[in-house]
């Protein structure tokens, strides 16, 4: 991947001593503007990622949200290593939500890889937002923090700091810089036995211009990167002191419970408050365009009072739409149109016409909710023509701008206070803003802080969902049983270009997308389109393998001759899983492989069928090539996380539309893998020396297909529609006995 080399390293003195060194992703004019409008008391603001204080402590400002992926630790490790800092002296802090900390590298990285950030496609298509404006965002998504912000901004800033500190020490000692070296937050000069701490040099370093192209370390020189260091956010998370958005409190705070139109997009027609206003603690009932909120001095009081409020919402053309209707619409649209080209290779049509044999497989997946453990919430405090905001978000800067525009304020009048996220998974990405909009409009009616909280039911029913998708396949075989053509017609929109492409050497491919819009709002869900496309393509490849009479593992290897990374992770996973060896009676292994977000992942699931026809996943062996690993422990943790998130969706995940609205209520009807369903997970981190790949998402896509492929071997039944809970797999016959 090529990134622009144009960048701006900046430095500035800290009032009271010390130095800030930054890597500016935005234009210098923006910094001038910020210095004119924001700086005070002689301070100078720069795009500052690293701050060195005179007591030798270093603070790394991380412009990404911590939602459990360990990013505050891994990015600080990258800066600290290039600096040769003592890890014990490093603090990691979330960067303030100002445009000085916009993580434009992420955007640049996305732009280079995909053209435009995938999760922004929908808004770009629908609005006048220009790509140039997107550097104003401070997003955490696309498994991008380490590979873009870390690789480019953090490492360069750290390396620049190191060179500046050496230059200061050399000047002070009157020795050539080449004779000095750094170690554990000190600069040393061996010949004279002298050394100075970074803190002792920091104030002088602030006088220097940062080098434009500091030398980055070779991997063999790493001292901190590559080590399984403990996460810095965990101690606060085991004693209950970590502050999430929902933990914002003040003595005068009010709380809002809300009822939004159950059918997406329907407007509020009338409200009968009943006895709600006379309930203890209730302050106001606020009517919004699509909702009504009760504001009280305690969330439970607000929620209880809301039960007494009667509401009528307008009727819409979607009031009778069900999931079955949506699937029927998909089938109609797929039958009626050949859609737009996603990928055409060779001549699939002719190959189909000349085929000795053709197999078909029609797949589909339902809508999915994100269901992070922390229900959506947002606290806004309007006061003195300004606003303060506390909310768990994957995009602090975007939220600042959103609250400003909804609240009628300038961006610089809105202060966003960074907090931990109780899960994200895409729910808290830019443009999934219903909660923010509602909370802002409600709080605007008050001069005290107002915290609006979605109940779990609200969260389930007012999400922006992983789309429901149908995907119809055909494959052609010649007289020798070789696969000659791959045809796929699936419903769009495309959120992740390339997710439906296959790495397999099949000469003729026709992959086309047919738009089939519904009224259900959709957005990025962990791994975005890869979540459904990998289930489709890796299941159908398995069908082709079985039809060819070949072992699914060998079959993949044969068709992946030009994909050494895919072959390697398949082989590592197979060896780790003991693939092909004897298994306990009633167990089988299924396999799947997918490249996403720069990483290549193979997973092998060992599965059995329970007496009630449900599946038990005993073990998942995963091999992931993410190029290079920054922190092996958090890397493994993310892989485990992605597998369980994907497995929950594959086994249980199904948002059902009834009468135009989401019928699911709460966790009992949108269940998750708990301890009893958690498989043993074995993770193999395969380092290839390729560019750093993502880790937050790539382990999610393969799991559903791996389980489906194992279930087929066990039962002879090909599950083409998720979730597995809807399939009784008890009265079926293993394919070995057919």
């Amino acid at each position, binding site marked *: 991947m090529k990134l622009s080399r144009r960048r701006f390293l900046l430095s500035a003195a800290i009032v009271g001593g010390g130095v800030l060194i930054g890597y500016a992703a935005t234009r210098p004019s923006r910094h001038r503007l910020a210095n004119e409008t924001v700086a005070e008391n002689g301070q100078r603001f720069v795009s500052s990622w690293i701050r060195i204080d005179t007591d030798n402590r270093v603070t790394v400002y991380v412009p990404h949200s911590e*939602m*459990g*992926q*360990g990013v505050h630790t891994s990015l600080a490790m990258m800066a600290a290593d290039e600096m040769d800092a003592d890890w014990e002296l490093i603090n990691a802090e979330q960067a303030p939500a100002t445009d000085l900390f916009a993580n434009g590298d992420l955007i640049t990285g996305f732009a280079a890889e995909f053209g435009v950030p995938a999760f922004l496609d929908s808004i770009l298509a629908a609005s006048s937002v220009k790509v140039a404006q997107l550097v104003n965002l401070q997003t955490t998504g696309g498994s991008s923090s380490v590979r873009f912000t870390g690789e480019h901004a953090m490492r360069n800033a750290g390396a620049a700091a190191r060179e500046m500190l050496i230059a200061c020490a050399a000047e002070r000692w009157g020795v050539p810089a080449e004779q000095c070296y750094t170690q554990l937050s000190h600069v040393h000069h061996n010949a004279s036995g002298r050394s100075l701490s970074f803190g002792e040099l920091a104030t002088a370093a602030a006088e220097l211009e940062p080098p434009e192209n500091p030398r980055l370390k070779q991997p063999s020189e790493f001292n901190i990167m590559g080590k399984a260091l*403990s996460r810095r*956010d*965990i*101690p*606060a*998370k*085991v*004693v*209950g*002191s*970590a*502050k*999430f958005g*929902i*933990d914002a*409190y003040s003595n005068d705070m009010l709380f809002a419970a809300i009822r939004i139109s159950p059918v997406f997009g329907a407007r509020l027609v009338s409200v009968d408050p009943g006895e709600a206003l006379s309930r*203890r603690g209730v302050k106001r009932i606020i009517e919004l365009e699509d909702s009504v909120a009760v504001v009280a001095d*305690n*969330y*439970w*009081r607000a929620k209880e009072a809301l039960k007494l409020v009667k509401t009528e919402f307008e009727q819409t053309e979607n009031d009778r739409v069900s999931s079955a209707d949506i699937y029927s619409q998909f089938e109609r649209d797929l039958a009626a149109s050949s859609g737009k080209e996603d990928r055409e290779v060779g001549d699939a049509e002719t190959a189909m016409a000349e085929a000795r044999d053709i197999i078909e497989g029609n797949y589909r997946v339902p809508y999915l909710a994100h*269901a*992070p*453990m*922390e*229900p959506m919430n947002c606290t806004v405090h309007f006061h003195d023509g300004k606003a303060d905001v506390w909310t768990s978000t994957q995009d602090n800067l975007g939220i600042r701008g959103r609250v400003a525009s909804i609240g009628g304020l300038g961006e610089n009048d809105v202060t966003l206070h960074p907090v*931990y*996220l*109780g*899960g*994200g*998974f895409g729910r808290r990405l830019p443009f999934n803003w219903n909660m923010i909009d509602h909370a802002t409009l409600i709080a605007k009616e008050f001069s005290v802080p107002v915290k609006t*909280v979605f*109940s*779990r039911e609200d969260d389930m029913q007012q999400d922006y969902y992983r789309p429901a998708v149908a995907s119809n396949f055909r494959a052609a075989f010649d007289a020798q049983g070789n696969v000659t053509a791959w045809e796929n017609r699936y419903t769009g929109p495309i959120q992740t270009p390339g997710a439906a492409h296959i790495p397999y050497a099949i000469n003729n491919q026709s992959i086309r997308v047919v738009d089939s819009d519904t009224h259900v709002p959709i957005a990025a869900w962990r791994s975005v389109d890869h979540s459904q496309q990998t289930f489709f393509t890796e299941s159908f490849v398995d069908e082709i393998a079985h039809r060819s009479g070949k072992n699914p593992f060998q079959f993949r290897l044969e068709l992946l001759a030009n994909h050494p990374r895919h072959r390697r992770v398949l082989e590592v996973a197979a060896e780790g899983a003991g693939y092909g060896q004897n298994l306990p009676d009633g167990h089988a292994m299924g396999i799947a492989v997918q490249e996403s977000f720069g990483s290549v992942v193979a997973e092998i699931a060992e599965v059995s069928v329970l007496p009630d026809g449900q599946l038990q996943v005993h073990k998942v062996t995963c091999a992931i090539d993410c190029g290079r690993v920054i922190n092996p*422990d*958090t890397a493994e*943790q993310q892989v*485990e*996380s*992605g*597998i*369980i*998130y994907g497995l*929950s969706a594959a086994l249980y995940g199904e948002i059902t539309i009834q009468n135009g609205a989401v019928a699911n209520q*709460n*966790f*009992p009807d949108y269940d*998750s*893998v*708990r*301890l*009893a369903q*958690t498989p*043993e*997970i074995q993770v193999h981190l395969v380092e290839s020396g390729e560019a750093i790949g993502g880790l937050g998402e790539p382990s999610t896509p393969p799991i559903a297909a791996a389980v489906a492929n194992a279930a087929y071997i066990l039962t002879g039944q090909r599950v083409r529609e998720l979730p597995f809970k809807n399939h009784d797999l008890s009265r079926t016959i293993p394919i070995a006995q057919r």
Partner: protein
Amino acid sequence: MANIKVNGVEYQLDVEPDMPLLWVLRDELGLTGTKFGCGIAACGACTVHVNGNARRSCVTPISSVESADITTIEGLAEAVNGNAPNAPTLSRVQQAWIDHQVPQCGYCQSGMIMAVTDLLNNNPSPSDSDIDSSLSNICRCGSTPRVRKAIRALATA
């Protein structure tokens, strides 16, 4: 008036008798370590101890726990280790959670730690099936493999 005792401190509160303990802890006492996850006792994020036993506070009316000893995540270490000046500031379960790097987003972990503490109090050496049948807490990040690993380490310690 409700008289309750949380982490050794007695409070006299003017709240409705049917207000759930969760919202008393959070909105009235400012003890934010106990989390709201589902409101119907389905996920366990709000788990606290009432007289030493795990209880899902989102469905526990305050009137049902008057005169009980309530412990939240904030008071767990002291409840376990006592308050002598040299007492450890973490319970052994909390320490194991750091040793095994269990939390991810961490939102569910207060409830998870309270539930695991209760499990180990009643069954110091739980089998895998004991763990499966007694821990129904939901963690959407998927910390469960490490939860099991940490419990196994505690069980044999």
